[in-house]
């Protein structure tokens, strides 16, 4: 589904990504973990077409052909199915819940499809349905996260990019969100690339995992392999 080879990205004068290699197969959950400033968010933003690429190969295989991400505008990447659920949720607080969801499907001209996707989502998260006319800024952090994921889902993602879905949420809510993501992957076959600080949670969920350090991938393997790797354990999972 996604193939990244030797990706270099510079922001300002800083070489943030210095040769990233990643592959995500269709139907997988992949995760990208690592310390703050390793370049995880930059990687996701590059995949969404929001940052210029210095060099490297970036390909999305949609099942109907291959797209060169470097040469595709952000708008067309959304249309091709790369949907980015950003760090800090970034919902539109002054818009209603329904308007937020509606914007998730901004590019879709099939309005009956969108209406159905939104009503399905209300079934999944009744709390959003009950408050559909309320300003989204009034929701709690966990509810805002559900809205942010919901907003991404109405876009019908083929590849869902999630940036720190656990950020600022209570542990119990984080677990609910991760359980929902797992179910989504299993039942709707949505491929995901999740950037996460909470490495333990992410590795338990992931089929494939990449560890980033200073703009490079330093380790990769299945989620289980990395969980069992003493080096990973010491660097990211150990206490203190």
């Amino acid at each position, binding site marked *: 589904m996604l193939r990244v080879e030797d990706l270099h990205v510079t922001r300002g004068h800083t070489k943030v990504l210095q040769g990233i290699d990643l592959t995500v197969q269709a139907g997988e959950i992949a995760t990208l973990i690592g310390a703050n400033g390793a370049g995880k968010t930059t990687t996701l933003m590059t995949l*969404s077409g*929001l940052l210029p690429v210095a060099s490297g190969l970036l390909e999305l295989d949609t099942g109907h052909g291959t797209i060169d991400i470097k040469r595709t505008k*952000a*708008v067309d990447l*959304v*249309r091709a199915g790369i*949907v*980015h659920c*950003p760090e800090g949720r*970034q*919902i*539109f*607080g*002054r*818009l209603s819940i329904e*308007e937020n969801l*509606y*914007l*998730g499907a*901004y*590019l879709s001209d099939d309005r009956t499809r969108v209406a159905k996707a939104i009503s399905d989502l209300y079934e999944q998260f009744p709390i959003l349905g009950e408050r559909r006319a309320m300003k989204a800024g009034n929701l709690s952090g966990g509810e805002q996260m559900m809205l942010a994921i919901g*907003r991404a889902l109405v*876009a019908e993602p083929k590849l869902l990019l999630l940036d720190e879905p656990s950020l600022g949420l209570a542990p119990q809510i984080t677990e609910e969100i991760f359980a929902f993501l797992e179910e989504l992957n299993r039942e709707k076959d949505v491929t995901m690339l999740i950037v996460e600080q909470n490495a333990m949670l992410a590795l338990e969920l992931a089929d494939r995992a990449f560890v980033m350090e200073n703009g490079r991938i330093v380790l990769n393997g299945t989620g289980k392999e990395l969980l069992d790797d003493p080096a990973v354990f010491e660097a990211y999972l150990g206490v203190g």
Partner: protein
Amino acid sequence: MSDYLIQQIVNGLSLGSLYALVAIGFSLIYGVIRLVNFAHGDLMMIGAYMTFGLVASGVVPWVALPLLVVAGGFAAGGLIERVAFRSITGAPMITGFIVTLSASIAIQNLALIFLGSQPRNFNFPEVFRMRLSLGGADVALIDLVIPVVTLLCALALTTFIRKTRVGIAIRAVAENPFAAQLMGISIGRLVFLVFAVGGALAALAGLFWSGKYGQINPLMGFLPGLKAFLATIIGGVGSLPGAIVGGYILGFSEIAFVGFLPSEYSGYRDAFVFGLLILILLVRPQGLFGESEQERA
């Protein structure tokens, strides 16, 4: 009600509408990209000269006149965005101010060169110059047409912003351009759209202005533009209802200062109007309908 009072109310409504039409554009553009477009008032002048040219040509039926002027204003507003603003996307805010200020000066001077510095008088077609009696007061038909058309435009625009997909996208960009981009919203296109819609409304105001006062000149957009900008500030920058209400407050107070103060003070009406602005802002710095910075954060 005395007929004098009726006349003053009609005058206030009419002048306030003109400010509101221009102020809506200011507010719309500011709301989306946090930019004050100083060339916005000059679009009113462009609209007035388009009206002049079309009337003078004698071939355009009067029904088509407003449509052509509005279309021309849409194009002119969009052109300003393409030529002056598009190239500085992402630049610091101060660059935007300087660019639109330069655009304004350039437009005024091009008009001086190509249209001449002499003010031009012209008469609207007969239908627009009718006068009628309203409660004993003798009022010009155009002073009634202006508020009605303005309110219809404001209603249409508000509905568009509230209900349509593009309208919701405009509000989303105003709040969080980064997230809006992730939704697949093309910000450049919306910026073009708000410049163009603002231009269309300002050109319409120019048509009305020329019909109301019967005289136009290349610098006529400056002061009304400045006052419409004040109207947006009074109403709360970025708020459409605020821009409309601000326009009417300004129009009415200006008429009231002229109409009810002793005539030796009427020459100072702008001083009174700007003084009123200072008073309102002292009490409510964010404007009547604006959100304070805390609410926004």
